[in-house]
């Protein structure tokens, strides 16, 4: 199929598809006039029932916590898939190369940034039920703290800080922990992922019941998954540099 034919086919079809999509969205309520009921019901009941202030997080880890289980495992499978696709490099078990020489200023900034990022990550995770944030966002920030160690010039340090078995362990227990919390509810005679445990006082760190554990589990899983993805990609890069390519 020639490129010209492809473009022609696409152009004609895309016009049709765009027209369809526009026709579809024209049937939506006007922007700003969300009709409900789902979201309005949750906004009305969640703060009282769940003792949380952030209804989005309550939706993510409680009302629709089962979706988030799937979401955790999407990220988990993606990290595993990346490891599988890039496995030839990983298998080679090489000694990490010497670090590139970076200026002291870069190194200093990096070293100073790490504790800030760790603290920020933990803060974002912990305040998930109160203010914007939660396991996913905090987990990525935590993973980025490790990345900064590398960018500041310490690839060896990055690898030492993230030994593969430890990352695997954290990742597996984060993802598995989510399932275990769900099964615990089952053992207590409730539905899978039923929110048990004290709900706490709205607006404090201990609010949210066992959904707090889900938040924590997903933070571990997300941080480890991102570290794993960064590591796999990083190994590729280091490998290319070793061969003098770049």
């Amino acid at each position, binding site marked *: 199929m020639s490129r010209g034919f492809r473009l022609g086919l*696409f152009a004609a079809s895309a016009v*049709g598809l765009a027209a369809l999509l526009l026709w579809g969205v024209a049937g939506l309520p006007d922007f700003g006039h969300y009709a409900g009921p789902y979201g309005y019901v949750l906004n009305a009941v969640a703060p009282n029932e769940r003792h949380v202030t952030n209804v989005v997080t309550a939706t993510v880890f409680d*009302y629709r916590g089962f979706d988030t289980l799937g979401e955790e495992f999407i990220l988990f499978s993606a990290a595993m898939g990346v490891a599988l696709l890039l496995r030839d490099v990983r298998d080679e078990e090489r000694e990490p190369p010497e670090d590139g020489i970076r200026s002291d200023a870069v190194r200093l900034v990096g070293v100073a940034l790490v504790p800030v990022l760790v603290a920020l990550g933990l803060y974002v995770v912990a305040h998930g039920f109160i203010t914007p944030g939660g396991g996913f966002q905090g987990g990525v920030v935590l993973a980025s703290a490790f990345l900064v160690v590398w960018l500041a010039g310490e690839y060896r340090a990055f690898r030492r800080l993230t030994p593969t078995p430890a990352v695997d362990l954290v990742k597996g227990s984060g993802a598995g922990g989510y399932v275990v919390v769900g099964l615990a509810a089952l053992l207590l005679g409730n539905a899978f992922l039923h929110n048990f445990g004290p709900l706490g006082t709205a607006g404090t760190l201990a609010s949210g019941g066992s959904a707090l554990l889900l938040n924590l589990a997903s933070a571990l899983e997300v941080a480890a998954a991102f570290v794993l993805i960064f590591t796999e990609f990083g190994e590729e890069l280091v490998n290319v540099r070793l061969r003098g390519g770049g």
Partner: protein
Amino acid sequence: MDVLVALPVAIPLLTAAALAASGHILGRRVDDIVGIVAAAATAVVSTLLVLRTLDHDLVYWFGGWTPRHGVALGIAFDVEPLSAAVAAFAAVLTTASFVYAWRYFDEAGTLFHILMLTFLAAMSGFALSGDLFNMFVFFELMTVSTFALVGYQVHSEAPLQGAITFAVTNAIASFFLITGLALVYGRTGALNLAQIGRALQGNGHDGLVIVAFTLLLAGFLIKAGVVPFHFWLSDAYAVAPIPVCVLLSAVMSDLGIHAVARIYWPAFSGAFHADVPELRALIVGAGVLTAAVGAAMTFFQRDLKRMLAFLTISHVGVLVCAVGLLTARGLAGSVLYVIGDGFVKAALFLAVGILVRRIGDGDELRLRGRGLDAPLAAVVFFGGAFLVSGLPPFGSFLGWSLLVRSSGDVGYGWLPPVLALCAVVTGGTLVRASARVFLGWGDANDPLLSAEPPESEEEPGERESRFSPPLLFGPALALLIVGAGFSFVPGLAGHATAWAQRLQDRPTHAAEVLAGTVPPPASPVPLHAGLAPYGYAIGSWVLAIGFAVFGLYRQRLPGLLRRGAGRVLDRPVAVLKGLHSGIVGDYVAWLTFGAATLGGLLTLLVR
């Protein structure tokens, strides 16, 4: 509340996480055993779910969030026997694949087991979920788990190319889905399918409903591989490792069609209730096109895996027809067809794997006459070829009978002969391949077939010298026998039809999901298909053998006849083959074309 409902998802996911946490230290065989046990346990649980739902659905609200005043707060699994049977089928095949992989791979790391288990959880969840967004989540989990499995053989180009076309087209499928889902949510403010159905019923359909349904349909049909959304499928299935192919071909494609049924009846059937004949024409038309294109392309293949990939497409077409008849018998027939036929397709893939493992090749022409080095594969291959061509009363025959009866019910008497003709081509091609590979019949070369594929890229590495038949051959034969015997479960067709009616009775079903009203148990609907299904099946079987002989000795036909046929057919054949270009940009252009056409036709037909 039934504790079992969450387990088909929870067991494989927890096992996958535990394997990941253990970090490759357990050793290959422990991983294998853990995988087999987890998949088998899932199969048992899903089978129990079938048995528990014989009389009424199990509606399971995760987190205990039961609906309030008809508004769903959380996510529900809506377990009914047909969906639970598909989930159980997925788990059985995963178990068989793990057993087979024991001997098949030389280097199957823990990652393989982990991704197979997340894939299984995704298939179970996708089959059982009664929530539109939750279906999307499991759809994505299926896709993401299988991306890397398809590209497992990273050392050669073809698997990577197959994995990329698969990744891109399926990612776009999910964009169609979520856009359609967003439109539905904007209209109804609901994600639960039964609640959506209540909100949409009685108001007919406007642009939004038509477009949303088009987008959801397109998303699921891309996954299923319906023409013209099918291009990625043959590229991906031809290069995925055999144990993965088994699940992709026998379950994942069919789940796409099953999903159409799961969203159409609970959610959309109210909005389209006045347009059933038009909708039927559209969907059955797409099914016939798919069955025909798949069958034709099957004939042109010499790479056995790619041949089975196109066979999958052709059978997806049959399924689309069965569901598209929009009757209880059609829906019941589709599920029985998925399972009966799925076992056979799985056994065929495993048999190709045995050839690859034993002889080091999976190419029909190069293997000519060499197949008897693996005599057990011959049994499976011939058996599978006969079952595919329709040999009654085995395999998918029960599903076929329901389809024939249902076609008659709605005045589509022309449909069974057309589909039987497709079975002549696909079955005949498989018989041809079996005869050429195992008996050495037919010409050594055939220019009509696609270009010679490169030497097999399967993982084996070392050829199987210490040939260990039981673990490779056992699963293949077991699947074939189970598939063949599946039609003999007493009263299955009648019960399945009653279960399908339950799913299709929207108001009663909605009350069951949203208010917990348990309907009275339904009695089985007798099949009474007469002798027609036998006639079609025996006819297509006999013709398939004739067609196989044609395929083997085509070049010995009189020259005049061949040149005449060549003048008529050469160009269309070249065009058809050329369309399967392997280029992802082309495929995405076809997806766009397919979605636009589907939407355009739907608009024209139902307005």
